[in-house]
């Protein structure tokens, strides 16, 4: 009986191993193809994915894999050499500039959004800070109706959060959020579904959603209207460069791809993702 059960286990193990082996071989049959792995920010990933597709179409021997997971992961993966290029949806910090090379490929603004039925037209920076700290918890205190404010915040590790905190000089631990979200779209959906919510998302994405009839509106930040125009000309204070990063000075395929991603050839793709092309002069 024991022998039988042993044979059975052996059978399973060998069959699994044969399965694995054949998988391994099929991948090694394509040595001529050069591969780039890019990981990081979910805001940048769809854009880089489209740029990569066009780059692949023009260079048939190249394969570019774009993975997502957030800016922090982009940095970690580049540092541990898991990825050739990382994506971060902000500028490199001073302490990162020594270790990493950053290349801006597009710009994006972060706008404060509320439900379109909300009568509030403008709130100043101090009020935003007070709302996010829970000191103001009713819309009537900032000129709205008598209703509790639902604060929507981004999850830890998201660049949008970091940028928001930096501009408003807040710490994440000070924020009393009722809803914590991950990706951009989740922000617009949460606010569109809650008349008393306040959140912050990409200006380009919010403009697109408003065009599509989603019931949200953008509030000015620091007195400047949140539009693609003000983000492009730099007058909108809460904007960020979408950056690709490398560990070493890029060369070869990596350099070619980054140059391609910064070139005018991809400006239509940048606009297609509701982002703002970045002019390198």
């Amino acid at each position, binding site marked *: *009986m024991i022998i*039988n*059960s042993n*044979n*059975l*286990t052996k059978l*399973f193990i060998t*069959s*699994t191993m044969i*399965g*694995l082996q054949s*998988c*391994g071989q*099929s*991948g090694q*049959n*394509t040595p001529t193809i050069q591969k780039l*792995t890019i990981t990081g920010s*979910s*805001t940048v*990933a*769809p*854009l880089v*994915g*489209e740029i990569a*597709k066009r780059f*692949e179409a023009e260079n048939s021997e190249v*394969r570019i*894999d*774009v*993975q*997502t*997971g957030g800016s922090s992961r982009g940095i970690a993966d580049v540092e541990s050499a*898991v990825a050739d290029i990382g994506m971060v949806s902000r500028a490199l910090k001073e302490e990162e500039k020594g270790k990493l090379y950053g290349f801006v490929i597009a710009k994006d603004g972060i706008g404060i959004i509320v439900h379109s039925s909300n009568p509030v037209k403008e709130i100043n920076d101090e009020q935003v800070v007070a709302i996010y700290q829970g000191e103001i918890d009713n819309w009537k205190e900032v000129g709205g109706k008598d209703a509790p404010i639902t604060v929507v915040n981004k999850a830890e590790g998201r660049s949008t959060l970091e940028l928001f905190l930096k501009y408003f000089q807040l710490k994440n631990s000070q924020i009393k959020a009722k809803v914590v979200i*991950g*990706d*951009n*779209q*989740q922000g*617009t*959906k949460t606010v569109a579904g809650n008349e008393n919510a306040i959140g912050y998302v990409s200006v380009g*994405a919010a403009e*697109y*959603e408003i065009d*599509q009839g989603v019931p949200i509106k953008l509030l000015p930040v620091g007195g400047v209207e949140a539009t693609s125009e003000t983000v492009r000309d730099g007058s909108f204070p809460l904007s960020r460069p979408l950056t690709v990063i490398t560990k070493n000075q890029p060369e070869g395929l990596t350099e070619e791809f980054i140059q391609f991603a910064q070139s005018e050839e991809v400006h239509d793709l940048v606009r*297609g*993702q*509701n982002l703002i092309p970045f002019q390198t002069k």
Partner: protein
Amino acid sequence: MKQEIIKSPISTILVWLVAVLVTGTFAWILGDIIFHGVGGISWEFLTTAPEDAGRSGGIGPILVSTGLILAVAMGVSVPLGVGTAILLAEFTSATNWFGRFVRRSLDILAGVPSIVFGLFGNAFFAKTLGLGFSILSGGLTLACMVLPILIRSAEEGLRGVPDELRLGAAALGLSRTTTLFHLLLPAAIPGLLVGLVLGIGRAIAETAALVFTSGYVARMPQSLLDSGRSLSIHIFDLSMNISGGDTNAYGSALVLVILLLMINATAAWLAHQSSSKYNDSYQFR
């Protein structure tokens, strides 16, 4: 007494209300997905590659990746799962300390959130074994995830086989292997299929574990070592990360639901076939 209680109008209404609520929720979700998704589905949608980050174009490569991930997951987990179930049900008694230890571990594993499997898969399959972001990494991670479900339901299936069959086989002098392959496994097929359906259901719906293992690449996979985006990740990305991706998200969701219904129907049909065959050939009472 009991009958009186059951027949009292309040409990009748309550029971009906609960039933209507449950089926109503299901019908609402299904109706919503069909209503929004049916317009987007066409042969072209099913076969072409996504364009413009998924806003337009189809889901061809994503369907292929999903199928491959599922095939790897099931190809690895079914033999391992059935093997372990045989060990637990046929070669160890219900009170054996080893069997109890394995069972307890499986129950704990079954309750582990999928993101933990994802992180494990990323650390072990993708990095330690060097498989990278690949369909293989994703499939193996899912295999680990569905193993507990598969094993427990296969074990239940085997334990459900009447002991008369084992005794009869022993009395006829059949070896244990023969008994296993010709009597017990065929008789346990309905139980195995339940496990398979639950496992496939969990695997095909998985998002969190796959982001870190099989990845986000929406290109047609050339081999199992390529990264491939699964349907569930595609739906998540379109609905949560891509503005204007909702139409295709609904289309993809409808495809996913149809796939699941098809798998369930096939399994139910197979179970019915095998159980009627089993009843015809092994009438022992």
